[in-house]
């Protein structure tokens, strides 16, 4: 238990920051500082332009030494931003860092009351008074160091997750790569080419997939989902569900004593399987059997049985023969792994664009999405790379591309945000049809072309020069000619200021992207927040774009918000680097906001025990009576027990009852009534 220095006379130093004009623009900083001098326990008050600057921090350290301060208050920005800075300054002055308290007079005052200087100044004075009251009662605390498990987990095996896993493993960290589908690769393996270089997507992706598969530091867990997460940074216990895939690997066969057995990927089973289902990898445009692989380049190359479709006829078992790879009785397995840090890279889904019914997707045969276009133009896709009209198999010549389909849409049906890669991949699509189909003309209906990346604007010019037609305007509706199945695209050309009715052979909707359906479940398992649009929330939009508010959990790729492949890979490398730091340091410091039992007050009623979500509390016999005991390693410092104990016997370090009551009293009873 931390030593409580009792009966010392509090001597508090108060420092009020101008933050340039950020604070001083609406708050009379000098008046707040003068007011602080009149408060009980305040030994010194000062103000400064930028308290977070080196001279500002030095002021704190010097005052602690000169004035023999017992506590420090800085009235400035949010403690969520600069509490660590000023705690360090407090420490530098020779005081325990937990004797520091912050008054937020910027985010929650000067910035939100910009036109009410008098009220803002009064509110700042109250905030300082409240902070001084708490600082007067603060005690020395020592952060708890815990060891960090030398292993990491990456959830999601798209290009982002693969990159993060490779970096972590190559930094010498044992890494579990958890992918829910039967293969790694993610959306990128569905793409034909990639802008702006027009590299073949699979060609640049498969070497990475092979690297992941071969890397000894990576334990690849495909067809696996996260079931449960316990613990905290350094010590996450993650329970995984290895879904029954009905087929065993050579290694698993060996473990079962089947010599030379296990799936070799020969595909003999597929030929005999009588059940036909649509292949989700081909977006339902091609069939697959009940025993399947998504595409020839899957990694790992192991077949999977779709038990929802399988009729258990056993023909595949027979076809497989001596390899004995098919096990139709396989059951899901649970396994638990311990990791120090986690990277989430769970990607995205396509917005169900049929909701924008005015464009007729799923109603009109020849209206397709861009992802379907990718599969149709891809040589390994369902049509061998021949773009055809679904209605009659003819090659389309006039093709309309509708950009921002469901993106930048404030009607409430679509998404308000920009999906960030649709402009660029639509330019790529335009190029592809000009290249592949002689005489074909792409008509691009756009709002603005966002070609923001390196060599992107140049790519845009190139596509213009190649003959793509650009029409600036949102498409109001699309109507189908019932006989020809051609489509009439109705829009307003906002540059010429006139309506357009254009007949085309095919329409490609650049549909918005959205968080996957399981994002909500995943983020709750890991205690990560989301932004209003459902993407996982980074710790800070500018300064901590890979971190989350849950220590030890990091983000990579589109799960954090739409981004193209280069940005996904860059963020993945950032997340991997951030996730490797605690592991390489070997230990992390936890804030010491633990619960403590004040045994003399504890009645041993045990009511608090069930309040704790982490099972940190128990009853023990001590000196002949029953008292509560806290297991510090389990306590996360939420204070739920402390808010409940009827006898007030629980001391919440740094948020103790007397400290909070002092804040309440200081606001309501102190000051100018």
């Amino acid at each position, binding site marked *: 238990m931390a030593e409580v220095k009792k009966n010392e006379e509090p001597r508090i130093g108060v420092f009020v920051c101008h933050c340039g004009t950020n604070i001083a623009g609406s708050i009379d900083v000098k008046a707040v500082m003068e007011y602080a001098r009149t408060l009980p326990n305040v030994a010194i008050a000062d103000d400064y332009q930028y308290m977070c600057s080196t001279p500002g921090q030095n002021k704190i350290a010097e005052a602690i030494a000169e004035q023999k301060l017992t506590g420090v208050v800085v009235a400035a920005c949010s403690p*969520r931003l600069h509490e660590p800075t000023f705690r360090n300054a407090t420490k530098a002055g020779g005081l325990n860092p937990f004797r520091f308290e912050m008054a*937020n007079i*910027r*985010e929650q005052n000067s910035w*939100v009351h910009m036109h009410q200087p008098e009220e803002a100044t009064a509110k700042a004075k109250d905030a300082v008074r409240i902070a001084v009251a708490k600082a007067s009662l603060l005690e020395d605390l020592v952060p708890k160091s815990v060891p960090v498990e030398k292993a990491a987990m990456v959830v999601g095996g798209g290009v982002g997750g693969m990159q993060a896993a490779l970096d972590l493993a190559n930094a010498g960290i044992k890494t579990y790569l958890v992918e829910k589908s039967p293969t790694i690769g993610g959306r990128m393996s569905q793409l034909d080419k990639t802008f702006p270089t027009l590299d073949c997507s699979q060609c640049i992706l498969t070497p990475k997939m092979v690297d992941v598969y071969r890397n000894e530091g990576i334990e690849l867990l495909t067809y696996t989902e996260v079931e449960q997460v316990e613990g905290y940074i350094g010590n996450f216990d993650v329970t995984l569900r290895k879904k029954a895939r009905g087929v065993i690997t050579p290694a698993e066969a060996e473990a079962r004593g089947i010599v030379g057995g296990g799936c070799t990927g020969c595909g003999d089973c597929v030929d005999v399987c009588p059940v036909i289902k649509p292949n989700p990898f081909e977006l339902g445009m091609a069939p697959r059997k009940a025993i399947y692989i998504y595409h020839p380049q899957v990694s790992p190359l192991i077949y999977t049985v779709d038990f929802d479709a399988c009729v258990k006829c056993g023909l595949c078992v027979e076809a497989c023969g001596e390899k004995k790879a098919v096990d139709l009785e396989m059951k899901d397995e649970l396994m638990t792994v311990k990791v120090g840090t986690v990277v989430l890279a769970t990607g995205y889904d396509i917005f169900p664009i049929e909701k924008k019914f005015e464009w007729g997707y799923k109603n009109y045969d020849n209206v397709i999405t861009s992802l379907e276009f990718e599969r149709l133009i891809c040589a390994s896709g369902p049509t061998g790379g021949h773009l055809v009209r679904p209605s009659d198999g003819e090659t389309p010549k006039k093709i309309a591309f509708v950009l921002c389909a469901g993106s930048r849409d404030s009607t409430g049906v679509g998404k308000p945000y920009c999906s960030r890669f649709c402009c660029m991949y639509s330019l790529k699509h335009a190029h592809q049809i000009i290249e592949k189909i002689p005489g074909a003309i792409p008509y691009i209906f756009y709002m603005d072309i966002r070609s923001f990346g390196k060599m992107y604007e140049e790519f845009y010019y190139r596509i213009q020069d190649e003959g793509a037609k650009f029409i600036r305007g949102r498409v109001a509706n699309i109507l189908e000619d019932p006989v020809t199945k051609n489509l009439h695209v109705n829009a307003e050309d906002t540059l010429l200021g006139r309506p357009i009715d254009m007949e085309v052979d095919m329409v490609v909707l650049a549909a918005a992207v959205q968080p996957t359906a399981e994002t909500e479940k995943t983020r709750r398992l890991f205690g990560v927040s989301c932004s209003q649009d459902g993407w996982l929330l980074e710790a800070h939009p500018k300064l901590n774009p890979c971190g989350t*508010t849950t220590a030890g959990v990091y983000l990579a790729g589109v799960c954090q918000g739409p981004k193209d492949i280069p940005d996904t890979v860059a963020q993945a490398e950032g997340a991997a680097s951030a996730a490797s730091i605690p592991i390489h340091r070997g230990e992390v410091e936890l804030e010491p*906001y633990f619960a403590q039992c004040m045994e003399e007050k504890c009645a041993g009623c045990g009511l608090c025990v069930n309040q704790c979500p982490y099972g940190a509390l128990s009853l023990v016999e001590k000196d002949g009576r029953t008292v509560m005991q806290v297991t510090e390693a389990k306590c996360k410092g939420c204070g739920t027990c*402390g808010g409940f104990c009827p006898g007030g016997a629980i001391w919440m370090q740094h948020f103790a009852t007397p400290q909070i009551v002092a804040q*309440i009293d200081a*606001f309501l009873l102190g000051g100018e009534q």
Partner: protein
Amino acid sequence: MADENWKPKIIAIICNWCSYAGADLAGGARIQYPPDIRAIRVMCTGRIDPLFILKAFQDGADGVLVSGCHFGDCHYLEGNFKAAKRMFLLKSVLKNIGLDDKRLRMTFVSASEGAKWGMVMEDVIKTINELGPSPLKEFAR
């Protein structure tokens, strides 16, 4: 209203992870709201002992706002459920001692809901302005 110069004294006790972060976000976005609320930060709304709120009313607070994460989003899993239960019970206590239970409000504002925080501020202040000064004020020491 009895006192012409009366301005409501409202205290907000808010959790670090959601509502405090949401309030910071409102600041970053320069969302303007009336200045009558003072906030105290706790790590989780589960920390809030009903006695804190009774103490605030005893001290003459005109209103108390408790704000945390949405259900299912609490940084500590279920602190906000516990808090909501306690606030619910506390509301009946308030009624028994003759206080309008609208003076105690619990809201759920996430770290990304800066605009919502502004609306909550407006709304709480409006409610308390309509209710007028707390009848307990004269007993406050």
